[in-house]
């Protein structure tokens, strides 16, 4: 198996590990033991799947894009994570971690969020399971994702605007880690992607494995084969890891699309921050750089360690697309298929559009990680009145 368990030190190849203050080491160990134990417990796994089904809306459909496929000359299938409760794939991981936190006797969740999708999902799980919740969000993101801030408040969560550093996702992670260092006895850090110290990258991927499993089965049912290409956007890399894990042992090409302004894998320099050794955007001395893209959810200078590994062994490719390509893809899917994608997910489509000439007559499975409702405000500013006429 290509996407197998990490080794005892939490490494995928040379990437991963557990680079956190000593204070948090016992909590990471406790979490790893609890996760192994829970995942081996049929009662836990069945409750996880029951909630994802009855509450989350799984399985998510596989949608064939007839008009878009014809236009591009590429057969495009969408895995519809946008139809999950709370509007993105994030709910899979959050339900898993919240159930685990409860099982560990923790009464409080903290989370970081960029676009607000993971924060909303965590606030939702906290409401569902009656837990306290505090979400850290960069000041810049609080301003560009106002609606999600209000949603989190409605769901009963506290939202703290982080005004240190670059005031975006990476600083929200720092602040959530600082909270956890101080509250580790009663608090679980509900990390939102396949990043952070061991066991997070592996655990979060495991909770998202359901995306790849379902999609694999749905593809077999539809066409009796797997797609030629599987493509997903990559911020930290959780939706990509989820769908890749269903196809890593097939012949399908795996493509993780990064924003041009946040291409951690693309630049390929290893570094250590947020508990992990992975590819990291940094300056010539090792200061972490700020990512910058049109989508808050991908504004992350690092990437999950398993993606660094998949890239290093050549199993997956990590191209980058520009904001302009994303804006065009966002509109294209809306107009041809009646689906407004999240700006994050539009990155994956932007790559397909750009590469269409090389993908003629191939089958491309695209993980539509979220819906674009949260982005329409921002896109109104970008597009002006042009598209409202």
């Amino acid at each position, binding site marked *: 198996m290509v996407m197998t368990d990490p080794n005892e030190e939490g490494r995928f190849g040379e990437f991963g590990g557990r680079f956190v203050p000593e204070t948090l*080491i016992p909590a990471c160990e406790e979490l790893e033991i609890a996760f192994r134990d829970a995942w081996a417990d049929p009662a836990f796994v069945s409750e996880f799947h029951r909630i994802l089904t009855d509450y989350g809306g799984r399985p998510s459909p596989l949608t064939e894009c007839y008009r878009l496929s014809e236009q591009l000359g590429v057969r495009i299938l969408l895995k519809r994570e946008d139809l999950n409760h709370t509007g993105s794939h994030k709910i899979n991981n959050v339900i898993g971690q919240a159930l685990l936190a409860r099982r560990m006797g923790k009464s409080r969740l903290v989370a970081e969020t960029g676009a607000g999708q993971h924060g909303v999902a965590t606030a939702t799980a906290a409401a569902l399971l009656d837990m306290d919740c505090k979400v850290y969000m960069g000041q810049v993101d609080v301003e560009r994702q106002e609606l999600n801030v209000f949603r989190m408040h409605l769901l009963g969560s506290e939202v703290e605007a982080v005004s240190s550093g670059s005031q975006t996702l990476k600083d929200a992670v720092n602040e959530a880690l600082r909270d956890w260092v101080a509250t580790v006895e009663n608090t679980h850090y509900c990390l939102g992607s396949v990043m952070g110290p061991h066991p997070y990258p592996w655990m979060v991927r495991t909770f998202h494995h359901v995306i790849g499993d379902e999609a694999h089965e749905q593809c077999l049912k539809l066409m009796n084969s797997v797609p030629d290409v599987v493509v997903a956007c990559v911020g930290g890399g959780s939706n990509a890891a989820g769908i890749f894990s269903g196809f890593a042992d097939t012949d399908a090409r795996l493509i993780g699309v990064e924003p041009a302004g946040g291409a951690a894998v693309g630049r390929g320099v290893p570094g250590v921050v*947020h508990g992990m050794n992975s590819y990291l955007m940094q300056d010539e001395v090792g200061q972490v750089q700020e990512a910058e893209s049109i989508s808050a959810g991908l504004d992350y200078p690092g990437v999950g360690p398993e993606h660094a590994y998949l890239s290093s062994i050549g199993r997956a490719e990590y191209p980058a697309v520009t904001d302009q390509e994303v804006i065009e893809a966002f509109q294209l899917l809306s107009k041809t298929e009646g689906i407004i994608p999240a700006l994050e997910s539009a990155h994956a489509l932007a790559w397909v559009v750009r590469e269409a000439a090389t993908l003629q007559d191939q089958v491309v499975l695209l993980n539509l990680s979220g819906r674009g409702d949260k982005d329409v405000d921002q896109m109104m500013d970008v597009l002006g009145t042009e598209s409202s006429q």
Partner: protein
Amino acid sequence: MNLNSDVGRMESFLRGRRDDGAKLLVVYITGGYEGWEAAVETAAAAGADAIEIGIPFSDPVMDGPVIQEASHAALEAGATPASVLAAVPNLDTGVPHAIMTYYNLAHHPGHERFAATLANSAIDAAILPDLPLVESGPWRQAATDAGVETIMLAAPTTPDDRLPELCAASRGFVYAVGLLGVTGERSALASTATEIAKRCKSVTDKPVLTGVGIGSPEQAVEASVVADGVIIGSAVVRRLLDGSGADGVGELVASYRAALDAG
């Protein structure tokens, strides 16, 4: 080379002071922040037994608001590891120097190169708070080979069965983290501070210093009943942020020194 062999300059200096009956005072100052060099010299003159120089990092996860602000300002002013380290050999302190920074700044240039740079910059020891014992082996080896002592942090959550190994691995002194949390002054000494110092002292005869959360000379005295001394950081850096300058730092350090000496 055996990681636990030879006693370095930091450890022998602090052991010597302890043997003389002193309670130890280590003072942290953010390198690269305006006026930091004068502050380091004044702190040493006012009675610090060692100086911890912060090399500012973009993502200081173990630091609270005061040190974050100073680090950010220093980075904005153009501070780099090279610019901070280049200044150290010219500082007139008469006491050992440690750097305190985050692991990526050692990882990026490579362990050997970073350790050699420290050794050539009048740095005796290093504190990397996001490099826990389980991940620290390769760095500690490189540091030891270059003659740099790696000071390990023991946390209130560190289990008893790991503490002996952690204290044995630590060089220079053992940094007992006084509370669950990040750097910053607190209004009272946490009960965890005495406990962790006591637990460390029971498994090592290396100097054990308590840091994180010390906010007044009285707390320093209280913490030093069990510990061999304290590390003060945010209280000092706050003097720089509020414009009190090197004189303000000197006065503050002198007040801690006097309190610790009076016992």
